[in-house]
């Protein structure tokens, strides 16, 4: 065992990268659930975002266009969920699961011609002086722009939900859609926008895996991150900063356990492998002891006639 082989600076820097896809997907789903909609299709929207982002950035040579396309791709797929649950008033759980299955299949089809291709790289932030600082440089100033977007998005969602009228209306729709409707708010329209936002975020998260974290296209490459994002939203009690904490914790423990293994630490590997899940859940369960609860209208179907 030789812990000195682990470089803490690189470790923190890579845990931030490992956490970002999860963070993006979870923050989008948080907004959706705050509006009272349960979309279990996160995994499907992520993988569709992963392939649309990958394909467009390969075709155009621009990772920026790729990320834009991934957000559009994710949102387009969520439009299907909109159609099913907001227009046809179908069951949200079943529609969400269908969305995941459909997304996995569709992405495999779209990705046929993109196996084994290398995507154009996205330049990492390089601020003179700042990025060259020891310790702080690689951790705070040495990443790709999307990672910062993830953090900024968390802050924005928190601020909007807490301090703005838009946030208040969104929460009202999620807590009691009949009351919001009675007050004259367009419940369905607000929910549709929230779902599209969630789809776009999930798409970005997927593209982060295919363009930056891995970077390549492989069928099924999101490998369950969407499901972890869903769980994270619940364990974080629908609070944006806790989602960030949970995502970093999960990403962090994942990277740390691999580092410990490689350094030959004598902890049984099984425990290390399950540690990201257990530690994240434990931590968030302890945090959620403050009686936070789900939005009251979560998963309930709204129709103006009721």
């Amino acid at each position, binding site marked *: 065992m030789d812990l000195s082989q682990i470089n803490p600076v690189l470790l923190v820097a890579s845990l931030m990268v490992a956490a970002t896809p999860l963070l993006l997907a979870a923050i989008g789903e948080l907004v959706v659930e705050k509006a009272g909609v349960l979309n279990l299709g996160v995994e499907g929207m992520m993988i569709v975002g992963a392939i649309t982002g990958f394909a467009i950035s390969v075709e155009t040579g621009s990772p920026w266009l790729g990320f834009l396309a991934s957000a559009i791709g994710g949102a387009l797929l969520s439009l299907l969920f909109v159609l099913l649950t907001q227009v046809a008033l179908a069951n949200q759980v079943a529609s969400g699961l269908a969305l995941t299955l459909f997304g996995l299949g569709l992405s495999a089809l779209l990705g046929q011609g993109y196996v084994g291709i290398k995507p154009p790289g996205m330049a990492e932030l390089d601020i003179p002086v700042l990025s060259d600082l020891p310790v702080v440089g690689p951790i705070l100033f040495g990443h790709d722009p999307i990672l910062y977007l993830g953090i900024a998005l968390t802050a924005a969602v928190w601020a909007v939900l807490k301090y703005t009228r838009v946030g208040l209306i969104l929460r009202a729709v999620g807590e009691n859609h009949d009351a919001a409707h009675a007050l004259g708010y367009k419940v369905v329209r607000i929910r549709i926008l929230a779902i599209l936002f969630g789809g776009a975020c999930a798409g970005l998260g997927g593209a982060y895996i295919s363009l930056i974290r*891995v970077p390549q296209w*492989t069928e099924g490459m999101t490998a369950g991150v969407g499901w972890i994002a869903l769980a994270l939203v619940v364990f974080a009690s629908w609070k944006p900063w806790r989602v960030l904490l949970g995502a970093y914790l999960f990403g962090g423990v994942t990277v740390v356990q691999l580092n410990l293994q490689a350094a030959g630490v004598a902890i049984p590997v099984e425990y290390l492998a399950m540690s990201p899940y257990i530690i994240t859940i434990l931590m968030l369960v302890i945090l959620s002891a403050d009686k936070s609860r789900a939005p009251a209208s979560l998963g309930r179907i709204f129709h103006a006639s009721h």
Partner: protein
Amino acid sequence: MKFTSLLATAAMALGLATAAAAEDKTKVGFIYVGPVGDGGWTYEHDKGRQAVEAEFGDKVETVYVESVPEGPDAERVMTQMALEGADLIFTTSFGYMDATINVAKKFPDVKFEHATGYKTAPNVSVYSARFYEGRAVQGHIAGKMTKSNIIGYIGSYPIPEVIRGINSAFIHAKKANPDVQFKIVWAYTWFDPAKEADAAKVLIEQGADVILQHTDSTAPQAAAQKAGNVITFGQASDMSEYAPLPRVSSIIDNWAPYYIARTKAVMDGTWETVNTWHGIKEGMVEIGEISDAVPAEVKAEALALKDAIASGEYHPFTGPLNKQDGTPWLAEGEVADDGTLAGMNFYVEGIEGEIPQ
């Protein structure tokens, strides 16, 4: 004739026709642990399936289900496949072993072929490839090429097949370079590109400049490419899209001849339980093109090693070899028997760390 009776006759004719066709066709099913587009393990099995279709054309019908988790779900998928009339089912991952045996008991007329396992039954054969022969060649190149003397190894699950590969690679890396050290990370998955990429990155951060993988996706290759100055080897499939660097060579599993032969056996009614374990000699294990990034001299040595293994003149596990704890395993000139290899659950001397139990 009335329209309805016309329809009825047509339907009946159609029914008879399909029934007749179904009798002729041999239905072959495949269960995959990852998606067919993984670029590695499952991709090669699917190439084998396509070879069966190409060989027998109209006489066979193949079906497959991809990304089947190792566990109860696998049993359900196999049962479904057997109920739908499959005559022969290939279950292509170690973790399907007990599920295959269970389902095989319920369908005595259906033949099962389980890859990389060791449990057989009257209607269950097992087949595997001697990947460790390819690992020996990889180990030699790795030992010669490393500058940091640290070789990273991404393991999937601690099962004999994977441990054999680690041992074989280590023995031959050590022969080529006595200072070499192995760092082993267990990913506990066959297929999870993000996790595999993380594992590769961690190993590279800790100083490895050669990455060997026993997982199915090409993600470690991509991670190595991004890091630069790291070499890798294609696993299960050629992964030539990452040549000449980082991928300098590969182990390719060629299942097609075996799948064709076994399908033929079912058609002819000559199928019986076998325990197949083929290597470089029979062509089930192939060594992918060694790229120009490898010096000519090392390449020549690697090819000589491959030829010696193929001709049977050299066995990758030849004594003197000790187990990790220093107890003697093989005496000078003694070669390992297949039984020990099949159940291998120990590291050879010189590897650090413990095998997860």
